[in-house]
């Protein structure tokens, strides 16, 4: 299954294209126009809100009021909203907290997921079946809010940043995706290294990992996005709002339109439209930065290949 998908998504696909067009009766011009219009509209539906959010964050209040809150191009662009946000301590602090949680969490997740996936990539090894079953069963159910809360409380992790990382550090689905990828690495390569006297760890480091960059990138992105975007676990486990990550600050500023008291005491920043959209932009930028580098891996069937397995 996995091999099929991957090869279908890469080279043979391109050579097949002309065949497909030759094989099918030509579409009517009308149909083509309709399809193009639909797809352009869909893309606009995604892009326009982004553009508008960025434009609003750069516009002055007068223009925003005149435009009724909907700005596509700031006539007098200014960074005032950003300056006032970063002048206070709340957003800067939350940004640092979120970045640290994301970096540390993603690193821990990748190591724990990768090692477990590799350990499960060899059927027939000792304990393979029960271990695999342990992972697969987690896909069927989740413990639920109250049991999760109780375990975090019992472990003494309430109001501690580890409560945002450890409970979600390993995701069963991601383990299965990585495992499928490892299992697809030709056995000849790993065997050759073993015959040359490489131990298990050396094989993992020098043969398997270099071949697995794509899957590491994609799974890493999944974890990073999950850590960056998480808001409910912070709401649940952190009762001190000085520890809040960015998403909770965004929620307070933008959705509840409330300001948080500022540790730098420069006076709270009013939740004007520009400030609200500026804080949105700040929280979207990291995702926009990594996305282009990682999205090309999606097409390679890293994900789709493992779904069936």
């Amino acid at each position: 299954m996995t091999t099929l998908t991957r090869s279908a998504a890469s080279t043979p696909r391109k050579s097949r294209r002309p065949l497909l067009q030759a094989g099918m009766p030509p579409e009517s011009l009308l149909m083509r126009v309709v399809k193009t219009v639909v797809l352009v509209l869909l893309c606009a539906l995604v892009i326009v809100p982004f553009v508008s959010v960025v434009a609003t964050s750069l516009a002055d209040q007068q223009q925003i009021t005149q435009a009724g809150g909907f700005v596509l191009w700031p006539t007098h662009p200014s960074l005032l909203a950003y300056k006032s946000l970063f002048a206070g301590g709340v957003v800067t602090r939350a940004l640092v907290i979120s970045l640290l949680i994301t970096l540390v969490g993603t690193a821990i997740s990748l190591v724990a997921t990768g090692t477990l996936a590799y350990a499960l990539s060899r059927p027939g090894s000792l304990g393979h079946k029960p271990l695999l079953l342990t992972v697969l069963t987690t896909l069927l159910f989740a413990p639920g809010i109250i049991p999760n809360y109780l375990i975090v409380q019992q472990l003494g992790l309430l109001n501690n940043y580890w409560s945002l990382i450890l409970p979600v550090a390993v995701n069963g689905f991601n383990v299965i995706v990585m495992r499928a990828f490892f299992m697809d690495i030709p056995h000849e390569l790993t065997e050759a290294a073993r015959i040359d006297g490489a131990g298990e760890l050396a094989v993992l480091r020098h043969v398997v990992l270099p071949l697995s960059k794509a899957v590491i990138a994609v799974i890493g992105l999944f974890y990073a996005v999950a850590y960056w975007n998480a808001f409910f676990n912070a709401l649940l486990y952190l009762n001190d709002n000085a520890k809040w990550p960015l998403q909770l600050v965004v929620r307070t500023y933008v959705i509840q339109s409330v300001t948080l008291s500022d540790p730098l005491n420069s006076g709270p920043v009013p939740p004007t439209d520009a400030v609200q959209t500026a804080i949105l932009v700040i929280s979207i930028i990291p995702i926009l930065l990594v996305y282009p580098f990682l999205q090309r891996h999606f097409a390679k069937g890293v994900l789709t290949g493992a779904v069936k397995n």
Partner: protein
Amino acid sequence: MTATSHSARKVAPAALHVETSAQRGGTFRQRLVQRAKRDRILLVLAVPGILLLLLFRYVPLLGNVIAFQDFQPFLGIFQSSWVGLQNFSILGDAEFLNALKNTVIITLIQVVLVFPLPIVVAILLNGMLSERIKRIVQSILYMPHFLSWVMVVAITQQFLGGTGIVNSGLRGAGMQTIDLVGNQHWFLTLITSQVIWKDTGWATILFLAALSRIDIGLYEAASVDGASRWRQTWHITLPGLRSIIILLLILRLGDALNVGFEQILLQQPAVGLHASEVLDTYVYNSGIIGGNWGPAAVVGLLKGVVGVILVIGANSIAHAFGEPGLYEGRSAR
């Protein structure tokens, strides 16, 4: 690691270990020790991940015992008194029934309205574009999937709230404004549109992969026979997607009682609980915020049990229709 095992693994990696351990003979215990020695590094590598899963996915299940307790946080699980099935009377509670009703309605609407959309978009994308344009469109449509619900809800408010674009337009046209984000009558429409906006693009990824696996020869043969594009879509494309559609429907069914927890929780203050309370928010609001730990744990526990039953049930139905369903991989590997 012996020389035999090297050559054998190349041919049949799965069968290898069984063979060699049988050849080596010895008692079960000796063989176990041998295998443990051979696989010790693999076993060590599995430890951190497995420990985390056990600690945060399995051990918490024990916490469900508070469904049978008059749980008091300051007493803890071990000191709180046992009350038998008393907490289960929550199942007749009007607020719980309302949450259940809302959950079922939202699930039904989303399965009917949201589920088919990515199939349509995938077929649209697959049919016409050059590889390059297709990839650009895909990248754009995948993007919203990576935004948090906080951001999606915030953007929605910017656009549809009292001062947003829709109301500015209405005001400009001299018409009455509608509060789309704070009105319980619009709530279902609102959250359904948000789900469509956020995840339709991303959901096409699996359908596109399945489409690329359909044998092109089928289309050629069909067009030689004079089948129109519509007929080809109906008789070749859709059957080619059948397995993946069934698989995803099973997964969706297993998730039937999970309806956008973060999404709804964020918007509850604006629309009120009557329209927006679902099972998960009920557990949170009544249990953790309201302090009714026991009854809320009952709801959470039953929700989990029903979820597992739904997945297993849907999977058996798929098997009955000769589809691989969800567990195929487990037996194959």
